[in-house]
């Protein structure tokens, strides 16, 4: 459970630390002191959906951290036989990096108001992500063809489970991506999709990070 405790410790320390900063040095019972003078206003200028996304990312972090902890604990038992990761995963990783890169490009284009680049960037990001997902399915097939089934060994089971879970989270992102891209292609102006693009970019970077963590763990064990 060490991984989980470390990651949740960081999250809880951030949350509680922030809340404590809002609550120290306040005298809430003093009504004559207008709110503007008090610390503890707890003002966050970010839009609500950004806070929503960050909270969701914390939830997903907890989810993956718990899976990783389970992985590490299960690994120590005698019957664990590591499986050879298909080389295709390297290619998939590269494609996912490209997707993240495309989203970063789109995000920059959005702040500069370049509609054409936004369109290109969104489509490139979506295509790369789709390629990654297809690549993951092919990797599954390669493993299955060489006899590494989910029931064979807990290492296999974890491999399928973790990749599936990561893929599902990307699919969820693709839904938001689909809505944003449709709006852009239908001629919505850049400003109206700015927030969606920013949120997509953050989410894609995050899922890339999760994938790199997962891939590193799979490779090293």
């Amino acid at each position, binding site marked *: *459970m060490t991984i*989980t*405790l470390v990651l*949740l410790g960081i*999250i*809880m320390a951030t*949350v*509680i630390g922030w*809340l*404590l900063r*809002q*609550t120290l040095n*306040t005298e*809430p*019972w003093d*009504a*004559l002191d*207008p*709110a*503007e003078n*008090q610390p*503890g*206003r*707890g*003002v*966050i*200028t970010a839009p*609500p*959906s950004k*806070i*929503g996304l960050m*909270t*969701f990312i*914390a*939830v997903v972090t*907890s*989810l993956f951290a*718990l*899976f990783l902890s*389970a992985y590490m*604990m*299960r690994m120590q*038992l*005698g*019957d*664990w036989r590591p499986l050879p990761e298909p080389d295709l995963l390297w290619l998939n990783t590269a494609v996912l990096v490209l997707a993240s890169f495309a989203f970063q490009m789109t995000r920059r284009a959005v702040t500069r108001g370049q509609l054409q680049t936004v369109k290109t960037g969104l489509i490139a990001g979506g295509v790369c992500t789709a390629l990654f997902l297809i690549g993951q399915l092919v990797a599954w097939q390669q493993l299955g063809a060489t006899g590494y089934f*989910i*029931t064979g060994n*807990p290492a296999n*089971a974890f491999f399928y*489970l973790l990749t599936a879970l990561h893929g599902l989270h990307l699919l969820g992102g693709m839904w938001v991506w689909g809505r944003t891209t449709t709006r852009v292609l239908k001629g919505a102006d850049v400003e109206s999709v700015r927030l969606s693009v920013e949120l997509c970019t953050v989410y894609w970077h995050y899922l890339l990070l999760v994938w790199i963590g997962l891939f590193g763990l799979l490779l090293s064990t």
Partner: protein
Amino acid sequence: MAYVAIADRDHEQELHDPTTFITKYIWSQDHKVIAIQYSITAMFVGLVALGLSAMMRLQLGFPDSFSFITPTDYYQFITMHGMIMVIFLLTALFLGGFGNYLIPLMIGSRDMVFPYMNMMSYWVYLVSVIVLLASFFVPGGATGAGWTLYPPQAILPGTPGSELGILLMLVALALFIVAFTMGGLNYVTTILQARTRGMTLMRMPLSLWGIFMATILGLLAFPALFVSAVMMTLDKVAGTSFFMPAILSMGETMDHEGGSPILFQHLFWFFGHPEVYIVALPAFGLVSDLLSTHARKAIFGYRMMVWAILAIGGLSFIVWAHHMYVSGMNPYFGFFFATTTLIIAVPTAIKVYNWVLTLWQGNIRMTVPMLFAIGFIFTFTHGGLTGIFLGNVVVDLPLSDTYFVVAHFHMVMGVSPILVVFGSIYHWYPKITGKMFNQTLGKLHFWITFLGTYAIYLPMHYLGFLGVPRRYYAMGDTEFMPESAFTLNQGITISALIVGAAQFIFLYNIIVSLKKGKDAGSNPWEATTLEWQTPDTPPKHGNWGPELPVVHRWAYDYSVPGCRDDFIPQNMAPDDVPMAADSVSQSPDVGTHGSEGETDGPDGEPVA
């Protein structure tokens, strides 16, 4: 501008005005309607679970008398009773019900920030409840694995419902977690983002602090249950060996090998312990507000209460293994968890002291909500003290499988939160419905429930010391159990049935008062918090009139010296506060906030 409330920003949140009956009451995105939907559904499954406990008690009190309760049934009843009460009733009611209703009203917002997601949260919750209840009717029946669902026995033949029952249970849990996550994102974001002007975090009522921290715990802890549910489903369906060791079942070797049941226990309790506080923290918050309001006195040590909530939230993640002392562990590991468990008693005890000190020299009004709130202090202290026993490894080992544990957790996380639920429903009922409930029936309900609680659970501690094992369908002939243990069990059963029946007084009261209750007015308890200052009672869609309220003070300005009234609403500007000296010269309708037409307190006593 340093402080920009969401209401002042360019894009004030758009409201989806309902137009038809269906969008108003069924597919509603209004947080108040969703809250009521959540509460009714939760109370309905709660009644089912109450019925199950009655059946269990009948079997325990009068074994061999009821042929229709078989051992299989008994284990299914235990399992479903526990799971429903902890997750589908308490978690859903506190966060989905009270969280939904109170958050936007108390912070002065028009709705949650993501109303659509809020609506989806309820409907996914409803589906999860239906899936859960459906498991009673599938071949093999509901799962009988105990609410902790420990593998391997949960998915092995021989355990009731080990085929479809356990699968439906796992699916229901996964759905519940999805629903909770959607709701939880809303509660956190709304509290952080949608507070009205002047509502600093430290001016929030403690109810919101409790709900806020419990939501954060839920968001981070429920994934552990999700992970274990997914992995157990795969073990069952796909034949993997995450948790399943090599095992002989019914004389045959199973396909599994090498899995670790202990891994499941770690994951389960990594969720399971924070879950205790997911239920307890909202109760702590709500009861603080009930005590303060009905004692006409500011909560004692507001900041300390907030910090205690934060401390409990942080500590609750590092105590989980105290549920696993009997599973066997490294003694140093056990020592660590015993220490953290005892440390968490410190912030909890601070809260209890502060509640008692809030009552100290307060102008206590013995209203129905107040009775329940004071009852909570008793039952919670009681359950908390036995928790200190059980937190120590050496004491826990002999007691762990006895009725002492049953008594402990029912006192601390069964009865105590439920008393707060009742107190809070009575407290906010006039705001939710606009009607006042029947006080006499409410008091009757309280006294039967409160005294009955002790009649049920005090003897259980004694049974535990005798060594009467929990989870047994029937005790049979055993030498260590004296005759009195069986008599006590009968007494417990009779008390339990009476308490169970008394809950129908509550249901009758809240249903009949909808039609026959007297109009309650907008602020019958003369409370300070924002939800009592709405222009309409019950609040209309959008909660506030054209203008959002502006907050000038914290939530606990009760009995402020020199003021005419013994409460000052949060949205009253310092210059508008009617002073005692003015009351003679000014007309009585000066204090326009909330208390118009209120000449009598809730129990008929004149308003100070």
